Each structure stands twice: as C-alpha cells, then as structure tokens.
C-alpha cells in the first residue's frame, strides 16, 4: 500500500482517519490531564505547607 492509497482508504479515508484521530485525541488527553493535574497539585500543596509553616 502506498501513501496515497493509505490516505484514501478505498474511499473511506474520512471515516477511518477521523476514527483514528479521535482515538489519538482520547489517548493523549488521558495522559496530559493527570500530568497537568499533578503539576498544579504539587504547587497547591507547596503553598499549603508554606502557609502552615508561617502560622
């Protein structure tokens, strides 16, 4: 299969590639969200600890 055929998917290119694109999006979001959440969580907990030290 060459690249043009792969893209065309025998006329079903839109459906096949939309499905794969959505799959990629779902898989990416579930990795990015918890990583971002961890970052902000550590920041909040750091500030929380600092404020407790001051008190």
């Amino acid at each position, binding site marked *: 299969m060459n690249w043009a055929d792969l893209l065309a998917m025998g006329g079903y290119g839109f*459906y096949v590639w939309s499905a794969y694109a959505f799959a990629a999006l779902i898989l990416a979001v*579930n990795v990015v969200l918890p990583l971002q959440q961890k970052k902000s969580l550590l920041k909040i907990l750091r500030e929380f*600890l600092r404020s407790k030290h001051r008190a």
Partner: protein
Amino acid sequence: MNYKYASPKNFYPLAGHLIPWLAGATAVFLLIGLYLGLFVAPPDYQQGESYRIMFVHVPSAWMSLFVYVVMAGAAGVGLVWNIKLAEMLASACAPIGASFTLLALVSGSLWGKPMWGAWWVWDARLTSELILLFLYLGFMALQASIDDPRRQARASAVLALVGVINIPIIHFSVQWWNTLHQAASVSKIGAPSIHPSMLTPLLLMALAFQLYFFTVVLLRMRNTILLRERHAAWVKEIVQAKS
C-alpha cells in the same frame, strides 16, 4: 499476596516505578498493532478498507466494559473492607472508562455511517453502550457532588454496583435482540470467525489499550494519593523535595 502495597504510602512509589515500563510496553504494542492493522492486514471482502476502524473500535469497546468491572469491583471492595486504595482505584477508573466508552461510540458511529447509512440507530448494543457512558458520568457527578471522601466513596460504590447489570446486557445484546450491530467475531464459542491477519493486529491493539489503561490509572491514583494523604509526613517530604 502482599498486603503491604494496599497502603497508599507504599503504593505511591511502586506505581511510580511501574509507570515508565507500562508506558513503554503500551507504545511498543501500539506501534506493532497499528503497523499490522494499517499496512499488513488485507482489506475486508465485504467492507473494504472501512473495517480498519475495528482496530480502535473493538479495543475501546472491550475496555469500556473491562474498566467498568474494575471500577465496580474496586468500589465494592472499598465499600465492604474500607480500603482507601480501592476507593481511589474506583475514582481513577471513571474518567478513563468514560473516555473509552466515548471512543467506542464515536468510532462506531464513524463506522456505521458508511456501512449502515446512519451515524446512529437505537439498537440494543448502541443504546446499552450509551447507558454505560451515562453510568460513568453519573458516577463522576455523584463523586463531585459529595465533599467527604468516605461518604463520596460509599454513595458512588452503590451506583457502580447497581450499574454492573448493564455489562452482561451490553455483551449479550447482539444475541438477545435483533441488532443492526454485528454479532461477536472473536469471543464466540469455538474458533473466532476472523482471519489471523486481522485478528493479530486486533489483539495487539487490545493489549496496548489494556497496558495504556494501567499506565493512566496509576497516574491518576498517584495524584489522588498526594491529595488525600497531604497531611502525612511522607507526602510533605515529596512536596518539599520538588520545590
């Protein structure tokens, strides 16, 4: 069985060690599965190239059921034995399971349009899978509406356990009702009615999705542990070490 790891303090570093290996294995199986599924597997004799949607549709649909069973099982264990880690596992499962369900519905819709001529039909398989999405979302909404972690876990566990009834309904819907959705090709009695050249990439993708689930569920559980154990000395050490 090592019960030591049921404590969040010991589970946190264990999960941290496992995540890179699980992520690496996910990537390997995903790449091989995609290569075999997109480049090597032949077109289907009836559906042409459109059937390649199967390689993301079927694994996500399987995972939508598997994650629900894990979620309800963990919620049940948390309910009966008051194990915090089990409750955390249940909450971590919900958004991931909801994503797999959404992916199964969307990829199915993108497959249904060219093959059936409709994005959506109210047949038993599609409807019960949509109910699964609502069960996940209901579980998450219920958790978000209760502040106290123990009450939150108990209330949502009851919902998760009641919803388990939907799992066999989804699985057997294609046998019990006359559905537009096709019947099982892999998990039926006797040999699977799918050629090895298509079955191999399908199973590799399913394995990749499984490993992916373990990777991201551990990521989420580690966050929940940090939040819920924030008063523990070992969490304070981690937080301060990162500053």
